[in-house]
């Protein structure tokens, strides 16, 4: 007899579990070797505590009342719970603080899209280490993790979360127009972006062209020069930040698989400064991401810079199989 489980959830059987476990252990080994201690937090938290982290997107898909009538929520990522944990338990600890996790998080799913309601993330949080050195350490750990997973062709995109916010402020664009433009950028809709930009009053054509062109700049160090050539204070500052991070990565010899990407825009509101995305040529989807969130901990009462990344364990597993000789067809 078949008993259903909710869409977007799944059972994992021994053959897959064995491989996931191996992958999980390989990743945790990398984290531990570099001084990241593993933590676990409850899957259920108070809704108002999670909402502190990111009112807009921490908007949990799964909320319910407990027996006392308190509103609880299932976490939608691990960064916000760890920010809460650090503020509560490590406020007086020596910094930087290095924590890692492998945990399940929960999100809403759209029907028939193969999306996961419950999914596993493996990641690290580096608290109290400012840019660029903190960012560089996170990228180094990320690269070592991808290596440990056998994904030596994976690429890390490096962008800047503040670029467009500052650029639009510089152009004097705010309110609805600003949200519309950021929305188009987040939706990767360049046609719509150009339409929104063209509709702005008091913004010159050259500046419109700059915005549109910036979002398409991705590649090596030369991209920073191309961006600077477009001009403007915001671009200057963002390229300086990315340039400093990239130079520090080069110094550590880990810049080879980093692609500078001025079109990156993470949709979580708590990011600031460097943002990361991870791709593998064997997979059409993003493997994970991360970046800096220097103002997140402030919302929990301690003012510390922070950075981290999270990889979707199941997607890394798929990529791993696809990268095997023969693309995982009968191994």
């Amino acid at each position, binding site marked *: 007899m078949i008993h259903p489980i909710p869409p977007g959830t799944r059972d994992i059987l021994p053959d897959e579990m064995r491989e996931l476990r191996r992958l999980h252990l390989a990743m945790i080994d990398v984290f531990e070797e570099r001084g990241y201690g593993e933590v676990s937090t409850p899957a259920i938290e108070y809704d108002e505590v999670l909402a502190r982290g990111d009112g807009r997107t921490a908007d949990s898909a799964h909320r319910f009342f407990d027996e006392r009538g308190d509103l609880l929520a299932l976490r939608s990522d691990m960064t916000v719970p760890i920010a809460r944990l650090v503020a509560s338990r490590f406020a007086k600890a020596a910094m930087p603080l290095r924590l890692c996790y492998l945990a399940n998080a929960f999100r809403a799913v759209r029907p028939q899209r193969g999306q996961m309601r419950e999914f596993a993330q493996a990641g690290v949080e580096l608290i109290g280490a400012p840019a660029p050195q903190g960012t560089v350490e996170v990228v180094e750990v990320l690269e070592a993790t991808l290596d440990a997973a056998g994904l030596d062709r994976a690429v890390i995109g490096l962008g800047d979360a503040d670029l467009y916010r500052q650029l639009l402020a510089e152009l004097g664009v705010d309110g609805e127009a600003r949200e519309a433009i950021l929305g188009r950028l987040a939706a990767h809709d360049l046609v719509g972006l150009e339409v929104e930009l063209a509709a702005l009053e008091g913004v010159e054509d050259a500046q419109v062209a700059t915005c549109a062109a910036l979002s398409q700049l991705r590649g090596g160090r030369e991209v920073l020069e191309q961006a600077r050539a477009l001009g403007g204070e915001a671009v200057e500052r963002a390229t300086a930040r990315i340039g400093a991070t990239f130079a520090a990565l080069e110094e550590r010899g880990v810049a080879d698989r980093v692609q500078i990407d001025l079109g990156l825009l*993470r949709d979580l509101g708590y990011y600031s400064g460097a943002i990361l995305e991870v791709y593998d040529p064997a*997979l*059409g989807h993003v493997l994970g991401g991360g970046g800096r969130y220097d103002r997140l901990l402030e919302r929990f009462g301690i003012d510390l810079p922070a950075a981290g990344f999270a990889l979707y364990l199941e997607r890394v597993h798929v990529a791993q199989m696809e990268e095997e000789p023969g693309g995982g067809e009968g191994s």
Partner: protein
Amino acid sequence: MSVEVAGLGRAKAEGPLKLAVPRGTLLEETLDALDSIGIDTAAVRGESRSLIFPGKEVTLVTMRPTDVPTYVEAGAADVGITGKDVLLEQGDRIVYELLDLGYGRCRMVLAGRKGDKRLGESQRRLGMMRIATKYPRTAERHFETTGRQVEVIEVKGSIELAPLTGLADGIVDLVATGRTLEENDLEVREEIVECTARFVANRVAHKLRAAEVDELTAKLREASAR
């Protein structure tokens, strides 16, 4: 950390870029556009029943326009061409919309029977219009943003039948010349949005095959400006 968690699509990134080509009304102009930038489309134009046409720089994969976002999102095709109507209806698919190709121009409209007051009367006396469409999400969004309640009825076949038989008070559909509406005694009541063919790319291909994608975009941009 990212909010979107889509399915586990997979594709190989080696070899020529895979370009999803829409069969149907957009096919001719799409092939013309590809010809004009030096991509050989003779095989697609031929009698062959094949679906995949390998080429030196670009492999053409032919499919229904509504499948293009699905294949491109999953990376089964690196880039593709489809109508804005399809992208609007499947707005939750994560693809890069890189270029307005300008052809395949048509309008998404609300239409009703000529001289018939049903749309207005249903709205006034029942507080609700019944709208038949092949684009339920686009229709729902339009009425939601204009503050009206509707019952959206999704149909697959000839949409003009719905108001003529009394299934619906009106329809939301794509109109190119308006001839089909005319022949069925229907008229445009509201314009919702204008749609053209768009060039889209997979999110990972856009990053990892940046040079090839950019070159193709630039050529198509130049060709569509001519």
